[in-house]
């Protein structure tokens, strides 16, 4: 899957949580690559392991109970999982920036905006305070905060949710990282603010040639922002493809069902298709294909043999025994 301009590559990543109730396999053999100037959307429902994947890349999984059991996380060729904690600190916020869902809880309430943007510059760059201040102001301007000179002295609670998220983006990008990980960055925001933030991220990506790993549960956001998509289900990747190919012709029954369960404009009052049953618990995933108890086209083979990701069309992979027939079977 990797090619020349791959910036971040995850190979067979497994992150497990060792709890009193058993081993929760939150991420269980996930591989993908994010390329320069492109956005890979990691999509899935709650508990599918998409956020733990992001935390594993940053090596921020709480340990104990969590542990990265195996795999590789290659940033520009070097395996982050082999770095010491000290070396890792030079990666976080510097070569990989991260934006979280809740800007209010990610910003420190007792420091000014200016201080918080300057902090990451002072930690990672050999910069004087005056230089850091200039750069921080420049970043606030880049993320289009109105009256940035005044905002430098504001505290997080004085800003709206959308403005706080802009500050988070300014912090994440202050050191010009080669990868930005955005974990549901617009989920807590209103639609009009969401569209502002998505447009800003797209602009900044074009300007800084960043690779972006965009984690979301919302297929509408995926359609509007991603170049490539990986759909996760039960700690594994079910399907991955270029965005248009995926939306045109999904080859995994889970992806197809997800598409159909979303209400679309114009299709008023047609019944929504549903996926029967519940998302399985990571403590107790079904045998073989983890989707088979909820799958409308499952056969005996799905109950006994785990499907591997197969390249069915150039660049389009799906983990399903019946991908060749899925279009015929699920019209």
């Amino acid at each position, binding site marked *: 899957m990797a090619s020349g301009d791959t910036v971040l590559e995850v190979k067979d990543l497994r992150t497990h949580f060792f709890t009193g109730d058993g081993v929760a396999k939150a991420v269980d053999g996930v591989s993908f690559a994010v390329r320069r100037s492109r956005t890979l959307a990691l999509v899935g429902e709650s508990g599918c392991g998409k956020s733990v994947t992001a935390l594993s890349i940053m090596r921020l999984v709480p340990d104990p109970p969590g542990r990265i059991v195996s795999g590789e996380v290659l940033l520009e060729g070097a395996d982050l999982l082999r770095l010491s904690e000290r070396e890792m600190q030079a990666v976080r916020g510097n070569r990989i920036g991260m934006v979280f869902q809740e800007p209010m809880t990610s910003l420190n309430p007792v420091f000014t905006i200016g201080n918080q943007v300057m902090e990451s510059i002072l930690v990672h760059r050999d910069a004087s305070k005056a230089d850091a201040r200039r750069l921080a102001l420049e970043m606030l301007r880049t993320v289009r905060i109105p009256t940035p000179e005044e905002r430098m002295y504001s505290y997080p609670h004085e800003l709206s949710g959308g403005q706080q998220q802009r500050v988070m983006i300014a912090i994440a990008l202050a050191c010009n990282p080669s990868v930005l990980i955005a974990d549901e960055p617009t989920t807590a925001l209103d639609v*009009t603010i969401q569209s*502002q933030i998505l447009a800003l991220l797209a602009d900044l990506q074009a300007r800084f040639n960043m690779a972006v790993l965009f984690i979301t549960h*919302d297929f509408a956001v995926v359609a509007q922002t991603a170049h490539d998509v990986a759909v996760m289900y039960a700690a594994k990747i079910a399907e991955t493809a270029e965005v248009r190919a995926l939306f045109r012709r999904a080859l995994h029954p889970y992806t197809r069902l997800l598409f159909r369960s979303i209400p679309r404009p114009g299709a008023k009052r047609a019944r929504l298709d549903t996926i029967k049953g519940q998302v399985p618990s990571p403590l107790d995933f079904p045998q073989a294909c983890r989707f088979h108890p909820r799958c409308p086209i499952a056969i005996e083979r799905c109950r006994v043999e785990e499907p591997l990701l197969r390249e069915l069309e150039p660049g389009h992979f799906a983990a399903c025994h019946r991908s060749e027939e899925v279009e015929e079977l699920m019209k």
Partner: protein
Amino acid sequence: MSADGEMVVVSGLKKYFPVRKGVFARVSGYVKAVDGVSFTIGRGMTLGLVGESGCGKTTCGRTILRLMEPTAGRVTINGEEVFALPSKRLRAARRFFQIIFQDPYSSLNPRMTVEGIIAEGLKVHRMGTRAERRRKVASLLERVGLPADAAGRYPHEFSGGQRQRIGIARALAVEPVFIVCDEPVSALDVSIRAQIVNLLEDIQAETRISYLFIAHDLNLVEHISDEVAVMYLGRIVEKASAEQIYKNPLHPYTRALLAANPVVDPETKVEKIILGGDVPSPVNPPEGCHFNPRCPVGDERCKRVYPDFVEALPGHWVACWARGEAFSTKV
């Protein structure tokens, strides 16, 4: 509208919250959360209420049911003047109007069994004997798609979607004629959302119940509603049939909301009207039309006078001086 007449009539509803300041907690102003809202809902019909956070849609739903005391206005549900009822009769009348909350985690008492939760309303209203209530709970559980053994279990044993089913069963137990659904699916996963939406629609088809469906997901609201009302800073700015409001929005705010709403299709990169700024504070709404500081088509008059809410097209109401003329080039 419906031939059976109106089930819910809301007129001139206002809910102000005092803002207190200083040592003596003097009232320094009011948050006009709901500022003169009027609408009707026919029997078996659904009115969708949309708007961004802080626009007053939740307060509106709660004030209608008198879960908060109104500042002004009249509400009639099933012929009963809700705000005129003395507390004893209000209690009795509550049987006919129920609410389903957004968060299925905090809205169910963790110390009560599912049977206790669902039967509580029946007990309060002295409906049926103990055996009858038990039978009723069993049939409700079946109706909302939960296993019969759920009755003796506690809320924490269930997933978000299942809890929302419990919340729906609780609301339905007393056989109401009207339910306020306050963001009933926004906390749920995509695949579970469709299940709950279908359930609400099936129940309406069977019982001809009326819904006020509060949500911020525009595609979902279009799907479930007969009529849609758009709120901005405490007031309804546009109201029309679901079809009309999506096909021919007349208010610039509705247009911006629809444009910001991401489309589930990577091939359609919609022309975006990116709305600048944030929703202003409801303590100090802007002079004239509340939307004028963010409006792309406003003029001098909009800064001085709040526009009347007029029927611009048959059944299509809007509070905007331009009434869609300024962007009629699209039609």
